[in-house]
C-alpha cells in the first residue's frame, strides 16, 4: 500500500525546493538538463505506477511516450491545433492505446507480460519508422511550445520551460499518488500480491489492470508531449524498446515501488550520463556496470537504501505515521 511517510514527504519537499531554486540559478545548459530530468521523471512515475505497484513490468512505455510525442507534433503542425488541445488529444491517444495493451496483456504475467508489452512497443516503433507519413527515420520537426505570451509567460525561454516541466512532474506525481490511494490503487496492489483472491472477491481483474495501465499511459503520453516540445523534434528512436529499458533502469536505480525513488533515479541517471559521457564515449558500459551492481546488491534502489537506513534508526514513529496516513 502506498503511503506518504515523513521521509517521503521530506524528500519530495526537498526535491521541489531544490529543482525550483536550481531552475532559478541555472545557466542555459543546466536548464536543458533540468527539463530532460523532468521529462524522464514523468515517464518513470508512469512506469513505477504499473511496475512497482501492479507488478506489470512494461517494455512499451518508450512507445507510449513516442506515440504522445508524435501525436502532439502531428496535431500541432499538420492539423494546426493550438498546443494545449493538441496535448490533451495526444495524452488521450496514449491512454487509449495503453488501455488496449493493458487489456490484451492482462492475462499474461511475469516474463510473458514483459514480452507481450515488448511486442506491442516494437509494433508501434516499426509502424512509425516505416511510415512516410511520420517522416520515417528522419523524424518530424516543428513541434511548438504552448503559447502563454498573453499572460506574460514565454516558453521559448529555457527557464520558463524548465519550471513548466517541473510543475507537470508535480502534477503527474499527484495523479499517480492519488491513483494509488484510490480503490483502484488498492485493487492493483492486491492483484499484484494475490490475483486469485481478488478475482474470488468479484473484482474484474483485467479492467483494473487495464485502467491502471491507461492512467500510466496518459502520463507517458504527457512526457512524450513535453519531449516533443523540449527538442521541438521527434524521431522514431523515442519509441525504441531501449528507451523503455532505460526507464526501467531508472526506476530500479531509484527504488521500485516507492514513487519518490524513481524521481531521484531520474536525477541520478541524467546527471551520471552527462558526467560520464563527458569523460568517455564508452559511458554505456559504466552505466551498465552500475545497474548490475545495484540489482545485485538487492537494495531497493537508492531510495530503498535510504528508507531502510531511516527505518533502522527510528522504526516506531514511521510505522505509526504510515498507519495513520493509510
Amino acid at each position, binding site marked *: 500500500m502506498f503511503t506518504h511517510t515523513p521521509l517521503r514527504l521530506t524528500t519530495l519537499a526537498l526535491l521541489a525546493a531544490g529543482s525550483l531554486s536550481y531552475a532559478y540559478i541555472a545557466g542555459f*545548459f543546466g536548464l*536543458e538538463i533540468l527539463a*530532460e530530468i523532468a521529462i524522464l521523471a514523468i515517464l518513470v512515475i508512469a512506469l513505477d505506477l504499473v511496475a512497482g505497484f501492479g507488478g506489470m513490468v512494461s517494455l512499451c512505455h518508450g512507445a507510449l511516450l513516442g506515440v504522445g510525442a508524435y501525436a502532439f507534433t502531428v496535431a500541432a503542425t499538420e492539423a494546426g491545433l493550438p498546443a494545449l488541445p493538441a496535448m490533451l488529444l495526444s495524452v488521450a491517444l496514449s491512454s487509449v492505446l495503453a488501455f488496449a495493451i493493458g487489456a490484451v496483456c492482462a492475462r499474461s504475467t511475469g516474463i510473458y507480460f514483459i514480452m507481450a508489452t515488448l511486442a506491442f512497443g516494437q509494433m508501434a516503433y516499426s509502424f512509425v*519508422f516505416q511510415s512516410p507519413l511520420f*517522416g520515417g527515420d528522419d523524424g518530424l*520537426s516543428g513541434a511548438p511550445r504552448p503559447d502563454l505570451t498573453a499572460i506574460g509567460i514565454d516558453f521559448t525561454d529555457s527557464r520558463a520551460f524548465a519550471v513548466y516541466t517541473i510543475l507537470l512532474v508535480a502534477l503527474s506525481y499527484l495523479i499517480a499518488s492519488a491513483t494509488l490511494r484510490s480503490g483502484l490503487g488498492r485493487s492493483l496492489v492486491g492483484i499484484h500480491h494475490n490475483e486469485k483472491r481478488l478475482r474470488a472477491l468479484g473484482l474484474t481483474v483485467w479492467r483494473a489492470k487495464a485502467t491502471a495501465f491507461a492512467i500510466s499511459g496518459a502520463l507517458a503520453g504527457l512526457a512524450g508531449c513535453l519531449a516533443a516540445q523540449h*527538442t521541438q523534434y521527434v*524521431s522514431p528512436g523515442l519509441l525504441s524498446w531501449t528507451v523503455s529499458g532505460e526507464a526501467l533502469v531508472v526506476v530500479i536505480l531509484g527504488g521500485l515501488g516507492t514513487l519518490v525513488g524513481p524521481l531521484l533515479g531520474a536525477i541520478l541517471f541524467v546527471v551520471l550520463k552527462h558526467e560520464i559521457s563527458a569523460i568517455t564515449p564508452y559511458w554505456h558500459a559504466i552505466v551498465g556496470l552500475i545497474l548490475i551492481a545495484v540489482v545485485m546488491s538487492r537494495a531497493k534502489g537508492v531510495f530503498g537504501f535510504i528508507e531502510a537506513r531511516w527505518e533502522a534508526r527510528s522504526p516506531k514513529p514511521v510505522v505509526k505515521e504510515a498507519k495513520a496516513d493509510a
Partner: protein
Amino acid sequence: MKSTFKAALAGLVTSTAMLSAAYAEDIKVGMLLPYSGVYAALGQDIDDAFALGLETYGADSGVTFEIVREDDEVKPPVGLAKTKKLILQDEVDVMVGVVSSGVLGAIRDTVDGAGVPLIVANAGNDEATGEQCSPFITRVSFSNSQVNRPMGKWMVDQGVKKVFTIAPDYAAGRQMIDAFTTAFTAAGGEVVGQEWPAFQKTQDFGPYLANAKASGADAVYVFFAGGEAISFVKQYDSFGLQAEMPLYGSGFLTSALYVEAEGPAAEGVITALHYVPTLDNPENAAFVEAFKAKTGRIPSEYAVQGYDSARALVEAVKAGATDRETLAAALPKVAFTGPRGELRIDPATNNIVQPIHVYETVAGPEGLTQKVLATLPAEADPANGCEMPVATN
C-alpha cells in the same frame, strides 16, 4: 558613450560576438560528431582529418583554433541538445560535423536561428541545401542526389539498358535511388524492378536477391552503407549474381573504409563517389601520405570531407572572417583545389560543386584497391526550392 548604449541594448545577443571580436586571434570550433554508436568510425575519420587539415593549412593563418568536441550518438535529440550547448554555453564561432541526416534535420532550425555558421562534413540529405537551406549552413561533403545522378547517363552510355534497384527503406536510400533512376530513365534506360528492405533491420538480403535475379535486368544498382554494405556485397556474390548481373551503386557501397571486410566479393563492383583514395593528383598524394602517417589508415571519403572542412574554415579566416557573422558570409565564397579536384560552393544553395569519380574495385598488390574509370564533370544541384535568404545576424 553611444557604443556602450548600443551594446547594452543588444544585450545577450551580441555578447558572444563582442567576445570573439575581443579575441580576434581565436576561433572556437564546435565539433558535433558521432563518437559512439553505429557511425563512430566515420566520426573518427572526420575528426582525425579535420585536425590534419588545420595543421596543414592553418599554421600560417595567424589564428589559433580551439576545438570543443561533442558526441551526438547519432541520435537527433542528443545532437540537438549538444548543439544548444555548443552555441549557448561554449559560445563557439563555428560548428563542424554532422554525419547523420536525421541529426542535421533536427539541428537545422537552431543553427539557423542562432546565426552560427555550420560546415556540414557529411550528412547528405538533399533538403539541407534545398528547401531547408540556410545562409549559415555550408556543405563541403556531398548531396545524396549529387553522387548518384551522374551514374544514370554514364551507365546507359556503357550499354546498360535495364536495371533493378535495391536500397534501404529510409529517406537517404530513397533520395539516392530516385536521383539515379530519374537520370537513368531520362537517358533512355528502364527500371525493371525495385526493392526497399527495412532499414537497419535487414541482415539477410537473400529474399531480395532472388527477386532481382528473376527480373531479367542487365544490372543491379544499389545504395548501402556500413555493415549493411558489407553484408549485401558478400551475399550478392554468394548467390553468384555478379557474373550474370554486374553490381553498380553509390560509391559508399565499396568505400575504402569497408572494402577490406567485403573481401574478394567486392571485386568488379562499379560505383561512383566524390572521392576515392587512389585519385591521381598531387593534392591527393600529399593528403593520403599525411593521413597515413598520422593515423596508419587509408583516408576514406569521410576523411577527405573532414580535411576539406578544415581547409574551408582556414580559407574563410584568411579571407578576413573573425566571428560568426563574417564566417557565415565568407564560407560560401571559398573555392580551392583539394584531393577531390576543383571545389567551389554554389551560392544559390551553399552546397559543394565537385566532380564525381566512377571507380571499379579491383585486386591490387596490397589487397583491394580502386581503379578510377571516369571522372564526370562537376554539376551544381538544382535549387530544389532553396531561396537563399541574405544572412542577417
